[in-house]
């Protein structure tokens, strides 16, 4: 048994902590995240309110914890669609090659020339704000990046002798693609997936900030940061702590990505 890479363990610990918060925010959080408390408006961090309170006296710690539920959801759902669609198309295009590959190349050029965020915002604007529509919008655009990554791997692997050996063995295309090529091509997309989850949270936060993602009063880190911006000079804690949570989640995903890259690296 190989030793697990240190980044993977560190990342997994961060994610585990976040997951616990996300799954049972009521248990972990000291206060109701949406309960107003006019006696304690804009309190700085203290023993009673570790992260302070906002302009309505809501506990920032509880709100940050509650927001993790939504944000981890975004991380998962906003990347799952692109991952699955991108994997299928990337594998197909890379394996089949020829005209399919050429058409795919043009499509990629088309998508890549538009700024990602603008494209997503445009689609959300058409579909209407809200999380589900954001997932759809991200899936429509995001799969291209997975597919492009996988295609490049598959193109290289397809030339390898062990794939030739499979063909000489008379194996079917599906078997060669799924059992022999995909496991060897999966590493970069899995690593990218982890980074993408971190990016998805940022995207969700950006859209939340613009009012196109999670709708108030649902707590979401981007929304929390947006809420705090008007009070930043008097009450920096409203913005800071959700921001720290955001960074921490991003770090967790990146560490897991790094660790997985190490773990999945196969010796030749």
């Amino acid at each position, binding site marked *: 048994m190989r030793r697990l890479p240190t980044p993977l363990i560190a990342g997994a610990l961060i994610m585990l902590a976040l997951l616990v918060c996300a799954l049972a925010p009521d248990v972990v959080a000291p206060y109701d995240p949406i309960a107003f408390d006019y006696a304690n408006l804009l309190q700085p961090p203290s023993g009673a309110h570790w992260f302070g309170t906002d302009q309505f006296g809501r506990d920032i710690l509880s709100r940050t914890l509650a927001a993790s539920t939504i944000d981890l959801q975004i991380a998962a759902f906003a990347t799952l669609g692109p991952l699955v669609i991108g994997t299928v198309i990337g594998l197909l295009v890379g394996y089949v090659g020829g005209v399919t590959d050429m058409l795919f190349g043009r499509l990629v050029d088309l998508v890549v020339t538009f700024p990602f965020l603008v494209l997503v915002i445009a689609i959300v604007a058409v579909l209407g704000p809200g999380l589900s529509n954001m997932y759809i919008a991200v899936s429509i655009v995001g799969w291209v990046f997975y597919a492009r990554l996988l295609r490049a791997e598959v193109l290289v692997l397809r030339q*390898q*002798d*062990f794939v*030739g*050996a*499979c*063909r*000489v*063995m*008379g*194996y079917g295309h599906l*078997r060669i693609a799924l*059992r*022999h090529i995909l*496991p*060897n091509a999966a590493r970069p997309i899995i690593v990218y997936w982890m980074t993408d989850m971190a990016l998805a949270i940022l995207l969700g936060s950006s859209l939340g900030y613009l009012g196109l993602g999670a709708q108030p009063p649902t707590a979401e880190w981007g929304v929390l940061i947006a809420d705090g911006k008007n009070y930043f000079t008097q009450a920096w804690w409203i913005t800071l702590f959700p921001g720290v949570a955001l960074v921490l989640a991003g770090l967790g995903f990146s560490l897991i990505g790094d660790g997985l890259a190490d773990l999945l690296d*196969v*010796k*030749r």
Partner: protein
Amino acid sequence: MSGPVQQAVLEARGLGKSFAMRRGTLDLLRGRPGAVLHAVSDVDLVVSAGETLGIVGESGCGKSTLARMLVRLHEPDAGTLRFQGQDALALTGQDRRSYHRRVQMVFQDPYGSLNPRMRVGEALAEALSVHRVVPKTEIAARIATLLDMVHLPKDAAQRYPHEFSGGQRQRIGIARALSVEPAVIIADEPVSALDVSVQAQIVNLFMELQERLGLALVFITHDLRLVRHIAHRTAVMYLGRVVEQGPAQAMFAQPVHPYTQALLGAVPLVDVQHRARTSGQGVAALRGELPSPLDPPPGCPFHPRCPMAVERCRVERPVLKPAASGWPVACHLAPV
């Protein structure tokens, strides 16, 4: 002399393959035709059960493309390929699969030819079960037999390719090829990536397995010392064509084609009696570079480098035809 005289197992006639080279956008716009690489042209070859056919040549001579056509990794654009009398190029579906079962390949690169994420046992089990070589219950026992055949320990089945040395990996590749009980094995430079001491192990294994299983073996290599040792018959290729084909021993003792002669002359032998360093013999066996297969010379493809070339060689391409030596040679100057 030329090995067991038997019915041909694998027989190619006039096999040819060319590749269209990629054209630049400018050439496309100008409507220029793309360059065509004639990798293999008009190759005839026959191999029988228990026989080894050696194929030698330098880089760009088409030997690897030929190997890949024989196992149908490349589709030939000319010629016929017959396996036990049957047209192998017309096979589709299940028939094509059974062709693959009978004509197997061993690859050059011991590092690239095994799936790095599959244990040795898994890879062998896959081959055995896809082709239903043995009932499911006997797969484990068959894997043990196969590993034993190639002299690998039983516990090799549980290990991944990266845990083995280059020579051991070639044994795994051979075991995989043998798993489906082929009649023919095409070995494309199977030992050129290995150290000499390990080369000998693998060459011996090929010879041992061939005799035991009656395999027809097509052994492709750039190493004349090896092919002379292992082959019953040998074809020498130059720029996609066979220039001489005959019984290995007789042909290497008295090569007819100037290229075969030069090739033999260029091999550095471990022979302390005849050393270039002490004999003061500072002249290379062959002058000039290998021509590009994209732009082969007219006439005999070898004429620019040939020390004996005459006017006819520059204009007319010699065909492979029987010579006085008793085997076919493609040279205008070969005594008939």
